[in-house]
């Protein structure tokens, strides 16, 4: 979700999904088409403020620890319409990505400060601080840690007065189907909290659409 300071973002260099074959999924509710809604606290010292947020997962490639989707901020004061951004995610699976970000101006200290905000990170904290957690096996852990980085504005221009310079530390709970996140940007208010829940969009159940690239 965009915030107010204007700064350009660096495009990531990751691949799209594998084509034509059925890749495994870590959680059926973190798969393409799934929708989440909630809010992001964007309060500053001067003002308490929260923006409504909708998220949709659009692509997933677990082999590469890749996830992507769109994020829609609904009541952005300076925008006439909801602002939609496209984001790409790194899944902390130790194979492709570790808990250490290593880019986007995030130092290991920043990483630890943010990850420790999630109670589900507690069992790993000492190991991560010792060796980056490179020997951890997260495959059967019911929480999925990720970083989400917004890449571009979908429906507004870059001159909209908003920025997507930062990124989110994210934790998905497989059981609760909730997403919690903390926005990190050295130039923005610290620890802006993102809270999302699975959105059933008027349905009496959980439905699953699918697509497959060739």
């Amino acid at each position: 979700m965009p915030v107010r300071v204007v700064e350009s973002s660096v495009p990531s260099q990751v691949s799209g999904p594998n084509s034509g074959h059925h890749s495994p999924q870590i959680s059926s509710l973190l798969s393409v088409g799934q929708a989440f809604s909630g809010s992001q606290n964007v309060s500053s010292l001067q003002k308490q403020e929260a923006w409504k947020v909708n998220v949709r997962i659009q692509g997933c490639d677990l082999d590469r620890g890749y996830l992507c989707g769109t994020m829609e901020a609904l009541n952005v004061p300076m925008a006439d319409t909801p602002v939609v951004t496209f984001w790409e995610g790194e899944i902390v699976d130790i194979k492709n990505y570790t808990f250490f970000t290593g880019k986007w101006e995030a130092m290991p200290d920043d990483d630890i400060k943010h990850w420790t905000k999630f109670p589900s990170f507690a069992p790993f904290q000492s190991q991560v601080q010792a060796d980056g957690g490179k020997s951890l096996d997260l495959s059967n852990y019911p929480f999925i840690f990720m970083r989400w980085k917004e890449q571009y504005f979908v429906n507004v221009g870059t001159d909209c007065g908003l920025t997507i310079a930062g990124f989110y530390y994210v934790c998905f709970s497989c059981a609760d189907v909730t997403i919690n996140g903390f926005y990190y940007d050295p130039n923005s208010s610290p620890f802006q909290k993102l809270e999302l829940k699975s959105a059933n969009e008027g349905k009496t159940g959980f439905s699953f659409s699918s697509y497959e690239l060739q």
Partner: protein
Amino acid sequence: MPTTASASTTSGSDGGPSSLVARLSSSDPDVKLKALREVKNQIIGSKTKKLSYIKLGAVPRVASILSAAIADGDCFQTAPAASVRGMLGYSSNVVVQSAAALGSFACGFDDGVQAVLAAGALPLLVRLLDHPDDKVVDVGARSLKMIYQSEFAPKYEILERGSLEFLVSLLNREGENVTELGAHIIAHSCRTFEEQKVMLKAGVLKRLVSLLDGSVGQRDASLGSLAAAFKNNSEVIKEFLGPHGGKLFNAILRLTMDSNAKTRLLACQCLIVIRDATDCYILELGLNRKLVNTLLELLDDPGQVGDESPFVLSSLVLGKEDLHTIALEADAMVKFRDCMEKENVNPRRLRGVLLALADLCSKLEICRSTFLSMQVLKPLVGFLNHKEEDIRIAACNCLKNVTRSIKNLCAGYFMKNEALVTALVLLLMDASEEVQVAALGVVSNIVVDFTTQKSMFVAHEGMQQLFGLSKSMVPAVRSNALWALRNMTFLADDKCKEAVYFGMTPSLIADLICDDELSVQEQALALVRNLVDGSVESIEQVFADDGIILDAAGSQLQCGPNAEVLIQGMYVLGNIACGNEIHKEAVMCLLFPLVGRGPEPFFVNFLLSTDSRLRLATVWVLINLTLPSPGALNRQQRLQKEGVLSIVRSMVNDPCLDVKIRVKTLLTQTELGDF
């Protein structure tokens, strides 16, 4: 194809080609010999003239002259005095001229090779290899060499009795053309594991290696034949090269820097064959870089080497991300774009470039984004209309890989491109089914458009074409058309879904669900799965025509043997079970049919399946049926009575975390969990 002289020589003057061809049948030996020489001289290096003489029926006449000369017998006697003095006798001269003419027809020209073969000249030329005169042997070998460099040459059966001895004898003779011929025959005909082993055991490979120190022709022929002898055969490679590759590996490496372009190309090809067949000759990063650079440089060659280099490059980078990065850093994309933008590019070269470009964009997003940022899309879209079918297919395959970029799909990048959409829709009407399949591959990707820009595709009658192609007699076309419709309906609005229901009709969808082809069944069910994910209205559509679609889905679920089909089918039910009470009850009716029932419901097997995806899909159906709603308790009781929930209870420690969590959800929801 050759035609008869009488049918083709309609308008020749005395000095024209027709007259010349007629003189090949002259009764005057001198006139005939002179005509033979003239034909040979005229066709050298000119494909147009070769074709023209082939059409005039020259090849059968030349073959007939050669046959007559051989039958004459004189030329196979001990070398006459004239030959000893360095001059050929008449018969030998005719043999030399006719054999040389046949070789010229075949030289670098597949139509010529086919004409020579059709005229029955191959065994005649082989006979010349036993001639006492070295010059005759040489010209015979040279002509045969031309034939064996073409894919149209017949396979030489290496395992037949006497064949191997013959090959060895060729390789051990002194004449360059003869040894080269031996190597070319091997390059052309050594294909099977057994043939490769026999070559190794007979010491043929050692002899081929020794040819690497010979003339340029021998060296090149040797490299080609070694590649054939090594291809996909790690056993032969390891036995011959030893654990570390040894001298031969290094010798081939050196040849990648040879001054001769063809040698460099063949050396690269040989190294790639070795790498692909074994896991112990992993090429170092520096060497990979060198090979990529060499092959890209060879693209500048205006001739056959330049035409072939992108194919070799493609085999080097195929499926290898590290090599994609290296090629990208070596500016491969610029080279390919420049090549594509040239006028009158040789179609073979163009196909190779498109193939290599497709490989390069198959995995890494950075390659796709470079492709798009360098404006390669524009010329590529142009090739969708190319007159040659192979090029249209290659262009589609390249686009298919480029359009795997979710980042650009999300931005609606491809659907905005009217030239692309228009060209693709036209290809859906192509006369070639292969082109249709390839085009559908691209369409399947670009219609996964997360913005609402599908209107251009619809405006160009794209959807109508997809409906039509879903009825094709060709399974791959049907399957791909459905694949495109399935992707198009991913999170689509009700209007789009209605258009699909209306355009396809429930009975067609039901027929496709029950198609003979598994891939068609899977895509048809995946399409229905998307159609019923959304509003209650969109679910309602599936009940049209007495629920014919649901019946088809139900029958597949009860007897379909394929997990992919079953998974899609269960998600159809799961999505319908997100609707109202009527919809949920309809799903219950499908799960517990009145007729054809066994001792337990069919879907119990799905819960016990070894495929976690099928277990998961089934658990989701049950979750949706028992979520709090007016009829949930009844459904829960039915599931309990039928023994389904007791099976679910046994899944609390499912090895798949996702299934385990959802089982817990289900049991908690049905208040039967002991947590």
